[in-house]
Each structure stands twice: as C-alpha cells, then as structure tokens.
C-alpha cells in the first residue's frame, strides 16, 4: 500500500503532486492519497486513487509541519502503508522528513525513478540535478520525495472515495506554525511565477548594468533574475537569485545573459521550457544546456532586442 501526500491550490492538486503520484503508482499495489488543510476536500475529489484521505482541523489553516508529520504517521499507520511519497517541495519535504524521524525510517529525497523491490532501488538527485545517485533503500516503510519536474505526470484516471477525518493533534505538534505573514514588498511578477525570466550574470558588470535586463523584462512582462556571483557582489538581492541555493524556476522562456553556466546555476533554471543564452563566449558551459544562443555582448544585444520589440509592436 502506497500513501501519497498531495499538495493542493485553488481546489486542485498541484502539478508536482501529480508527478509524485505517478511515481508512487509505479511502485505497484494500491495507492491512497492524503490531502491536508483548507480546500483539501475539493481537491481530493479529482484525485485518481482508491481512497483520498482528507485531514481537516481548525489548527490546519496555517501551515504546521509537525502537525502534517503527525497526520502522515497517523494515516500511514492506519492503512499499513509500505511507502509514503510526497512531492519535493519545501513544505512537503519538511513534513515528510519529520515523519521519517518519528517513524525511525530513512528518507530518500528528490527521487526521479524507483524500481519496486526489497530493498527498493531508486535514483535520486544530487547537486540540484547535475548529478544522479543510484541507491538502495533498506527500510520497513519507504519514505520518498519526488524531484519536481523529473517525472511526467500520467493522465488522470477516475477518482475513488474521499474520506475526510479529523486528525489527533497535540499542542506539541502545533508549536511550529505560521504565526504571521509579511506581504511581498514590490508589486510585479514574482520570479517563480513569471512566464519569462531574464537573468543577468557576472557579465552584466555592475548594478547599473542591469538596466537593459530590467527594460527587456518589463517589455515582456517577465521577471529579472540573477546568478550567485551577482548576489555575492551585492548588485541584486538574494530574492532574485536563480540557482541551486536560490530559486528553482520553470518559466516558458529563460534568457541567460552573461551567465557562464556553472552547474549550481543550471540547477535553478533547467526546468525552463526553453533557454536562450546571450554570451560573448561560444564555449561557455551554458551553451550546452541552451536551446538558442546569441553570441554577443548583452549590453548590445538586449537593447537591440528591446528596440526591435518596440519597433515591430503592432
């Protein structure tokens, strides 16, 4: 029996959760789902599993990872799950790691493939995706998170039964909970949500040098990103940083300007549907992950693109 923890937003499970579900189903045997918090019941109705457990509790309005872990343990125990799978998002990973500690089981984070068996053979991601590790998991219950956008979500089947319940939560489970929220400072497209992201790297040369980058981003309704070198130089805030230790994004189009393409940076943008590199060096590592390239200086190329966009706008 496999249990998949699904995150949901606006009444539907998230795409990465469905990817996790697909991987879980690959383990064979029946699969149940677990959804938690406000909106879970609506989202559970569409999930193609035998049973979708919905945990409802007034304390779950705000995210409380220990509560989630307690719920996972409760359900997993109840149904006798041999595997618990979750998407490799910040919150779900957090909750599953706590569950692993409670259950005294190992956790394999960011898996991309599994082969059923005992021990379970799995392939997981290292270095943010630049390296793969094949490993064997020796566990009573296999706890796995699934690396986002590495497993293709299978087309949905028909949903089964929905079983809402109220989990037993202690005060200790609710010590760690979101108490307050600080709203985003600036308006405008956020990096993870933008369809187009234009990133400037070391080649931009200075904080002011980002002018053409910002201009093009604004013309395309996109967001500005930067590499770690830029953040460390103090030219842009860390919130703009794309990379293994920054934001990992998956826009329609990622334009990397003056970025050499170190693996740590690629780890943040390889989810992009298409990558366009603008660089003076035709042999830069970014060229081997880019779909398109312009060989040239970004200070010339970007203004030219902006000018051409304006010129040909109908």
């Amino acid at each position, binding site marked *: 029996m496999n249990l998949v923890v699904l995150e949901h937003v606006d009444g539907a499970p998230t795409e990465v959760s469905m990817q996790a579900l697909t991987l879980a189903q690959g383990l064979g045997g029946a699969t149940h789902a677990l959804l938690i918090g406000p909106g879970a019941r609506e989202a559970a109705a569409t999930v193609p599993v035998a049973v979708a457990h919905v945990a409802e509790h007034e304390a779950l309005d705000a995210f409380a990872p*220990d509560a989630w872990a307690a719920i996972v343990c409760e359900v997993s125990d109840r149904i006798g799950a041999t595997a618990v799978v979750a998407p490799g998002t910040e919150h779900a990973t957090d909750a599953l790691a706590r569950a692993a500690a409670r259950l005294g089981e190992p956790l394999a*984070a960011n898996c991309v493939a599994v082969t059923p068996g005992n021990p379970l053979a799995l392939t997981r991601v290292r270095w943010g995706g630049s390296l793969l590790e094949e490993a064997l998991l020796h566990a009573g219950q296999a706890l796995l998170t699934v690396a986002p956008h590495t497993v293709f979500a299978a087309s949905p089947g028909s949903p089964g039964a929905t079983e809402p319940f109220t989990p037993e939560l202690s005060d200790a489970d609710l010590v760690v909970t979101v108490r*307050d929220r600080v709203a985003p400072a600036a308006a405008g497209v956020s990096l993870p949500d933008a369809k187009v992201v234009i990133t400037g790297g070391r080649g931009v040369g200075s904080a002011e040098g980002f002018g053409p980058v910002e201009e093009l981003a604004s013309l395309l309704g996109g967001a500005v990103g930067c590499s770690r070198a830029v953040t460390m130089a103090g030219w842009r805030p860390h919130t703009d940083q794309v990379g293994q230790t920054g934001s990992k994004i998956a826009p329609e189009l990622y334009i990397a300007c003056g970025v050499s393409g170190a693996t740590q940076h690629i780890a943040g943008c390889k989810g992009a549907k298409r990558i366009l590199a603008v660089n003076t060096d035709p042999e830069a*590592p970014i060229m081997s992950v880019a779909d398109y390239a312009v060989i040239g200086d970004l200070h010339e190329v970007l203004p030219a693109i902006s000018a051409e966009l304006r010129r040909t706008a109908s």
Partner: protein
Amino acid sequence: MKILVCVKRVPLTGGRIVLTGDEQAIETKHLGFTISPHEECGVEEAVRLVEQHGGESVVLTLGPADAAEQLRDALAMGIDRALHLETDGEEWDPEATAGAILEAIQADEAASGPFDLICFGNESADSGGYQVGLRCAHALGRPCATGIKGVSVDGGVVRAEQERGGGRDIYELPLPAVVTVLEGLNLPRYPSVPGRMRAGRKPLDVSIPTRPPSRLQRSRLVVPEGQSKQAEVLGRGAEAAPAVVELLRRIGVAR
C-alpha cells in the same frame, strides 16, 4: 547565548562534474572546497547573534580530516570553538549523520550547558538530503523551522522568516530551538587575517564517531545525459535581434 552551527565540506564543481573511475564519488583533484553555501550563512548568523547577545558559538562538522579547513574558515569568521567528527572521507547517509551529530551535541551540552539555538543548512549542496537538521531537532525534542531566511532572537523566542509566494511566513519558536537556513539569510563576512591567524592556532576538538550501517546505500553515481545540447545560434551581436523577436513571438511571450 550558546549557539551551534553545523557545516559540511563540499567541492566547488564549476561547469561540469567528473566522476572517479569507480563511480562512487566526484573527482576532486584540482577542485577547491568550501562550506556549503546555506551553512556559510548559518555561520555568519551565529557570529552576529553572539556579537549581539553575548555568549559562545560553536561550529561542528562531520567529515574527513581535510574538513578542518572549513572549521578554520568558520573560526576565522568569529566562531569560538570547533568540533570535528572525523570520518575516513566517505559520505555518511543522512540518518547516520544526524545520529553522530546528535551524540556530539548531547556530549557538549552535558559539559557546558544546552545550546539556545542550533543552526543547520536546509540541505547540503552536494547530497541534498533535507533532513539532518530535522532529525536532530526531533531527537532533542526541540522545535524546528526550515528554509529560514531571517532570524532574530528576543526574550527566549526565535523569530524565523521563511520565504513563500514573494512574501514571508513568520514562525516563533521558544528557545532552545533549531533552524535550518538558506543562503540569502545574510552576506557572510570576509574573514580578517588576524582572525584567520587566531583560528589557525585554535585547537579543534576531534573525535572519531562509529559509523552505523547505511540504510540509504549508494550503488553508484551517474552524470545525467542531456548536458550536450547544440544551441541554435540565432545570430551575433545586435544583428540577432530580429531573429530573437521572431522567436519570442512564436513562443507567445511577446505581444
């Protein structure tokens, strides 16, 4: 305050990753090493908190003898003491790592009192297990907040900020607590040379933990394919602009 920060020695890999012949590790000849980025911010934060509140900071690593270099970097930044859990160089799985760290924490707390705050990196740059800090917190029975990019301590409570959806979620944990932090928490200081020299003279507290059998056992490492795309060159310099705009329209990102 008594603060512990845990760090890991990781290589600086650059543009491509090359494996050793036996596919068990990255070839690190000619590679430089560093404290994993998230953790370096943890070190900086620990130093700042002690500067602000007084007390003592300790750095700990589970790693090979060479990891002393990273401990000395942390000492140079202003950490007071260093604990080195020395291994033979092979990487331990997250459960085993957490277990060894837990033992060291308990030993140090028995000797000189509890840590008000323990700081881990959210995940290490190389293995990305996402769990060592949480396991330690659970074993110690202390509250833990993860993915933290802002920390402040006041009146026995740590206020931890986590980025989500452009804004920040705020957690408030009573001390003693554990946080796992992300790069962006602060900008780590460049250590002064007098700091480095003093760090070089400080003795490290070295112990050799026993390694339990691994339940997440590596078979081999594989460099993923698809790293050698042939990018379609749209043009050179400003002359490429029309081709780029045509692409933007075709994809549907330009109006």
